[in-house]
């Protein structure tokens, strides 16, 4: 094959590659550049790492990071809940097909819609507290979204409820592809339900669980904006109790006219997400290999 023939495929691909570079690469370069500038309007003077210095020295930024990390507590709960529900559905309890649809509904609804409904429900004089008072559990009728002691936990509850739907569907799909003869053999050998789950089902689901965990970590670190925006009154309140990194970025660029600061935090978030994507790809590769194997 001549040199011109070897180059031909790259020449064909070049325009589209150039377009992709422009669409994705240009903004990325701009964000790195903006993070080193004091932007006013659409440009500003070069200030080196000053934006990063300011961010690292600010309590609110670290509070936002801490809130993201606190939300990670939701992941083991989501995994356990999704596993339990998917295995129960796999056991074909009566009406399982209907339950499967109902459980997946929150995932197809837009987050702002369910967050707005949840917010109404959890108001101090809302239906949740009304129900608690009605059954005599007044001590549990808390100011769920109005108190900085509980607001982030209430947001977490919503995240668990909605994001678990994805886990359930993923796990159920994997369960439906399991080799049933192994489970049947364990049953014939006298293994009870828990032993079958522990020693036969879970080992075969390891890869899909790992995949779900990594996806959930990325979601919680970089895709919970809509939850906290609605539940926290648009500002991560009460006080700053539900501010997360994404909301910090939004506030800096839209409400404080600080695109340089917003860019610097975006760069940090991008780098952290990048670190998490590496194991995600590794897992997908391993899953593919297992399927082929």
């Amino acid at each position, binding site marked *: 094959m001549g040199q011109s023939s070897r180059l031909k495929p790259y020449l064909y691909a070049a325009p589209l590659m150039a377009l992709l570079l422009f669409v994705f690469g240009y903004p990325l370069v701009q964000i790195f550049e903006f993070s080193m500038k*004091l932007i006013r309007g659409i440009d500003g003077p070069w200030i080196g790492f000053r934006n990063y210095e300011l961010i690292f020295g600010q309590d609110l930024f670290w509070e936002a990071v801490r809130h993201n990390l606190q939300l990670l507590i939701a992941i083991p709960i989501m995994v356990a809940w999704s596993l339990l529900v998917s295995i129960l559905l796999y056991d074909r309890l009566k009406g399982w097909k209907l339950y499967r649809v109902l459980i997946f509904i929150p995932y197809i609804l837009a987050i702002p819609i369910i967050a707005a409904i949840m917010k109404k429900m959890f108001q*101090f004089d809302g239906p949740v507290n009304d129900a608690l008072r009605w059954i005599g559990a007044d001590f549990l009728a808390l100011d769920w979204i109005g108190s900085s002691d509980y607001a982030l936990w209430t947001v977490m509850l919503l995240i668990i409820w909605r994001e678990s739907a994805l886990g359930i569907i993923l796990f159920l799909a994997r369960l439906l592809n399991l080799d049933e003869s192994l489970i049947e053999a364990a049953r014939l050998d006298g293994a009870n339900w828990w032993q079958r789950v522990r020693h036969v089902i879970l080992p075969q689901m390891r890869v899909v669980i790992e995949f779900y965990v990594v996806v959930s970590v990325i979601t919680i670190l970089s895709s919970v904006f809509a939850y906290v925006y609605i539940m926290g009154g648009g500002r991560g309140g*009460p006080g700053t109790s539900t501010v997360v990194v994404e909301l910090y970025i939004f506030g800096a660029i839209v409400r404080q006219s600080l695109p340089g600061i917003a860019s610097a935090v975006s760069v940090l978030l991008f780098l952290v997400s990048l670190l998490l994507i590496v194991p995600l790809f590794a897992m997908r590769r391993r899953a593919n290999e297992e399927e082929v194997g």
Partner: protein
Amino acid sequence: MTSKTNGSTISRRRMMQTSAALGAGAIAGSAFPAWRVRAAEEINMWWWGEQELPGLQGFVEDSVKNYTAATVKPMLQDTAVVISQFQTAAAAGKAPDIQYLWNGIYHMESVWLGYLQPLDGLMNADVLKASQPTLLSHYDGHIYRMGWYPLPMIWIYNKDLFEKAKLDPEKAPATWDDFLAACDKLKSAGVSPVGGGIQDGYWGEWYWGHAISQIVDTPGEAVKLFTGELSFEDPKYFEPWARLEELKKHDFLNPEMSSTELYPGIDLTVAGKVAMGESIGARMPKDNETTGDKIAPMVMPVFGKSKLAGKPIFDTQGLGISKDAKDPKAAAAFLEYLQSPERQKALHDKTGWISSNSGTDTSVLKSPVVLDMWKRWGQGDNIPYISNVVPGQFYEQALLPTAQQVVAGKITGEEAGALAAKVTKEWRDFNPDMVDNYKKWSQDLG
């Protein structure tokens, strides 16, 4: 080699050729911007306000249709981009001729960036003054905004609940002591004395705007809190939050306040569930129509001794002319047209609200309560709304969160002052270029 897609076959060569064509087409498309022609007499106007004053769009369309001196092309902006869209366009030299402007810092930053033209010299001075741009539109001796429609900042009380607590429904408490005494009576009568909703934070902004004007003698004094010449740690300047803490400690605030948003919170007073609260004048016609003139305006009860204490606060939404206006005189002529008596009447017909013009025909106001409010707030000895001088960073990270936390009983007024001082210092570090602008602005603000 071929790849299969939905049963059909596509050669890799064909796919690459298609990709190349698509990519080249897209690049070529972006390289040649659309050719735009704008007639010389065409005026572009970016505006906002339908979101808070339903019917304003009808008024704008009607005004554009009836204006014969030029063709005006209006564009309603989204709330989230009113400032950023204008500033981005101005930075690119493509700002509209006329731009909607919120008051104070919300347009002053565009002034400092050189994106707006002074209106004095372009507009008739008497018309501009009558529009009530307010002091917060002044910078370096010039006025950069024309008032369009008014936002009297008011406290309100429910006359029925006052009667229930055996209070005079025609006399709102004027001093802080009278106010606390009234709250005691209301509480004894089983009524939530004061509050609203602070879940989205805005109540805290309004509260501070009312309270700080009892502390400072001029808006310029408030600006000095941000430039570092004065400090929120001084008991004098954290007193607004200390007073709020006092209301919390006496259990005078409605219990659902922390989980209720601003407007549903105002509805609580209209619905007879909370006796006193904060509101804006634009709501008064509707609220009094609903209740049969049972919602009355009041000035925040006075605890401070400043020159501004006890005076009604009057804010306006406005319009300005950008540096990119092709014919600033033509744009100014359209702004003057919006202030004509005929347009003032049209504004009321379309929105049920009135023009900010101090000479507006008040005969259109049917409710005696609303008329009384307009005479005191719109035509009386009013003062500007000082919350509009607050920098965005302070607004987001101190002004709203502190009030929320004081109302929730999580921090004291003094702690609120310490947090405010810390955020102000951070604002100066983050915005070193803005500090000098603020210092200069404070000279215009007295």
